[in-house]
């Protein structure tokens, strides 16, 4: 018999798991955006070696499973004498992973800007930083918001993997209760609904921001 009352007995724990999933994912997205922007600039740099380093980093992180990346960060950092809590390992791995994806999204945004706009900025005497900040970034952010929202949703869903390194996120809590209560169906359906709730909020927020930024 399917009976969801057992789920409601553990509402508090589930919500705390949801909260953990939310802030770890969003923090990683934020850090990943900054790293991704830096990677993206490196990828477009006039210096060949820098372009190559960034390209290699991006292929490595896009071409291997997130689970492998998590395990490497989680098990290798202690070996290197760096002792950090598993949450920190999770955030590092997620940020490094999403940075690679976000940098490619951002690069696509930069490439959509016609060269003439940069030339105009140059002729008017803008410095490279001014051009980046006043001319390019605002357009890149506007144009890449839909893709960045998708990436955020991906990271929220993929963050379920951090349960494997003992972070008590939503997935971990659901797994624990489903085995102690022998009610996997109820708990996994509940987990699915909570993830859906979170990703839907992000979608709506993204659409709202997009509508505020649309110029014509």
């Amino acid at each position: 018999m399917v009976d969801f009352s057992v789920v409601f007995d553990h509402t508090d724990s589930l919500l705390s798991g949801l909260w953990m999933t939310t802030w770890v994912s969003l923090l990683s997205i934020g850090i990943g955006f900054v790293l991704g922007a830096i990677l993206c600039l490196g990828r477009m740099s006039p210096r060949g070696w820098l372009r190559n380093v960034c390209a290699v980093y991006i292929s490595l992180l896009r071409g291997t499973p997130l689970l492998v990346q998590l395990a490497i960060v989680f098990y290798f950092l202690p070996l290197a004498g760096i002792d950090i809590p598993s949450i920190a390992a999770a955030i590092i791995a997620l940020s490094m992973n999403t940075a690679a994806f976000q940098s490619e999204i951002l690069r696509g945004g930069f490439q959509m800007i016609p060269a003439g706009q940069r030339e105009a900025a140059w002729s008017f005497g803008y410095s490279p930083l001014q051009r980046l900040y006043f001319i390019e970034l605002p357009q890149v952010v506007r144009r890449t918001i839909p893709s960045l929202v998708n990436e955020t949703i991906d990271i929220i869903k993929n963050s379920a993997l951090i349960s494997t390194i003992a972070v008590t996120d939503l997935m971990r809590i659901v797994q624990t209760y489903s085995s102690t209560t022998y009610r996997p169906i109820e708990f996994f359906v509940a987990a699915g609904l909570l993830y859906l709730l979170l990703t839907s909020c992000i979608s709506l927020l993204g659409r709202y921001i997009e509508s505020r930024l649309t110029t014509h």
Partner: protein
Amino acid sequence: MSTNTQRAIKLVDLKKSFGDNQVLKGIDLDVNYGQVVCIIGGSGSGKSTMLRCINFLEQYDGGEVLVSGKLIGYNSDAQGNLSSLPTRVVQQDLTDVCMVFQQFNLWPHMTVLENVMSPLLRVRRLSKKEACEKALAVLSKVGMEHKQDAYPGQLSGGQQQRVAIARSLGMDPKIMLFDEPTSALDPELVGEVLKVMQSLAQEGMTMVIVTHEMGFAAQVSDQVVFLANGRIAEQGEPNRLFNEPQTDQLKSFLSTWSERNGSML
């Protein structure tokens, strides 16, 4: 004043190649302050490249570009060895030069007013109030102040080009370069842009204009330059040049043009 400093622009044996393709094969040109010079020539003859070398959007690889007597892009030491100048310095040396592009190159995320104000705020470092006043003044000069809150994407091509001209005028340029400013426009919108340019010419603005509008060139220019294969094939007063072309190249260029556009001027 030396003769050098009276010249707005002086090109000496200007050369530019893209790989093996030598596009400018030695251009000599003098433009005085207050003069309007139109550059005509077939597609691919090097008109844009020449203009772009003047404000260093292309690095030239031979000869000299002098603006108000100052060598642009390079520093020449006592022995005459050239070294590249830092970008900042080149931009500084080109403060008096503004370029108007075929594709307008307005910044689409800014309103008309913001487009014109932006360089005044970021480069000229005017206060918001001063920048706004200046921007409105130049916008009304091109008849676009009523669209100050529109975004470029909401305007016709002719209106965008007038805003682009206003954005340049805000910087108080002494020299304006135009690269086919009306070529991207629907025919019925060409006139409004030419009118603005004509009034600038009457006010004594120094202008170098790449154009296919021969009627306009004949009307406003002090000097017309005909470019062919990266060289100046012929140059002179518009009357003489259009009515008594000397070279075969110019003759055939003009006759092709009049076949396509009906009568000559």
